[in-house]
């Protein structure tokens, strides 16, 4: 069933630059969709429009079955530096007036799911980049969203952390029966994670290709995986034509 439907969505920035034009796609519940494209192609803008953080200038963003609870993960972990991991994760529950005790319990469970039980009382500055991102994911999941939006969440991480977080994200997606929109500029990351890849072209941003992938799990560097990477890369406009 269709969860979200974008029809000819357009967005201009205050400086007149056209960020998105005629952006249209449907999203079914349970999909793991990657929005793939070069920097500045409007991927992040599209994500903010879907989250309702920005209003579109044209077109429609429709929720056929009502807008579900949404979790959002930014490129930076975006934690509150003045408080510990547990309180950071509890933030969405605090805003929903969940009692403190129940909130702490749910936040502890969320931290355990990303493997950070032992770091509940660590401050963000005491955590590595990968751990901070795990806290950020725990915070996005603690309020039990149906739709999870991630804006290049692992771009700043080293390769081992990134691979580990990729696997964790897939596990959480399956366990919670989530729908995920994952913004990335990495062909390999989108090939590894997605059930479907939407390739975007820049200036103005629009969908260039819509690639459905066989269901996972996938093994990196296997022949099947490399073939998927090749298919995605072929749909990506070359750097020259993108400029």
């Amino acid at each position, binding site marked *: 069933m269709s969860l979200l439907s974008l029809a000819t969505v357009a967005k201009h920035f205050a400086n007149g630059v056209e960020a998105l034009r005629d952006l249209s796609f449907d999203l079914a519940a349970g999909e793991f969709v990657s929005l793939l494209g070069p920097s500045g192609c409007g991927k992040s803008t599209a994500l*903010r429009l879907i*989250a*309702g*953080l920005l209003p579109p200038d044209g077109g429609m963003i429709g929720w056929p079955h009502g807008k579900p609870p*949404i979790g*959002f993960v*930014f490129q*930076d972990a*975006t934690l*509150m*530096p*003045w*408080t510990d991991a547990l309180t950071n994760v509890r*933030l*969405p529950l*605090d*805003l*929903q007036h969940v009692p403190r005790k129940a909130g702490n319990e749910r936040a502890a469970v969320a931290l355990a799911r990303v493997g950070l039980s032992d770091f509940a009382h660590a*401050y*963000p*500055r005491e955590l590595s980049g990968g751990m901070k991102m795990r806290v950020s994911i725990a915070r996005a999941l603690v*309020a039990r969203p149906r739709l999870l939006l991630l804006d290049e969440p692992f771009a700043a991480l080293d390769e081992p952390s990134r691979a580990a977080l990729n696997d964790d994200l897939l596990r959480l997606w399956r366990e919670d029966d989530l729908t995920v929109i994952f913004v990335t500029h990495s062909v390999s990351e989108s090939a590894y994670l997605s059930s479907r890849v939407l390739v975007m072209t820049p200036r103005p941003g629009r969908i260039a290709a819509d690639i459905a992938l066989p269901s996972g799990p996938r093994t990196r560097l296997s022949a099947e995986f490399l073939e998927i990477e090749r298919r995605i890369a072929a749909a990506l406009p070359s750097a020259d034509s993108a400029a």
Partner: protein
Amino acid sequence: MKKLLDIALPLIGLILALAFWQWKVRHDGVPVYVLPAPSDIAAAFAANVSSLMASLATTLTVTALAFAAATLAALFLAILFSESRLAERIFHPYAVVLQVTPVVAIAPLILLWIGYDRVTLAETLIAALVAFFPVLSNTTLGLRSADFNLVDLMRLYGASRAQILWRVRLPTALPHLLSGMKTAGGLALIGTVVAEFVAGSGAATGLAWRIIESGNRLEIATMFAALALLAVTGVIIFAALSLLEYWLLRRWHESAIRR
């Protein structure tokens, strides 16, 4: 070791300077009404210790009241400015005018209006005017520096402006607020001294008045004793506020973290 040197080196310098001062004054036979020796100042302090301490209490009371009033008023205005561009555009020019007008020039007016029968209130207002601006400008900047993404996240979860202010903007502004308060503490003391100078004899009873009075009576050693007391008070205020800053920020802010 490094910390010990940080304390020991200035102390050694002070002792050497005092020793040279003592020796030079005695050796050249400088009259005590021009420049008293450190031992004369210590003797004057010992002789007047109860009245000097009473004056210090008066000055400290006004300083503390002015500091508290300036901090609260500046915090309130900073929140108003950060929440409403309109309020900032209306009031900010006047905040600047207050800041650049020498307080000595408006102090007589304030004393006249509030009246010499309420001199503590007048002095507090004058000192608060001096201390107010650094807290306002620092805190306004801090409230504006909140992480955009964090604010967006709050909005995503339906947070109200008050919740965003309380949970994100105010904690972000805390280091800026404390930095402004550190400057304001010293300025409140300076403002109090200026106010006591302007209020003059009969009305003011603080340390600044003791300085004027001792000068008029040519009790220069007592004057120096009051001056030294004032300097030590300023250092203690700064140290106390630095300690408060460290204590509040030690867990999370880059400025307070030891490497």
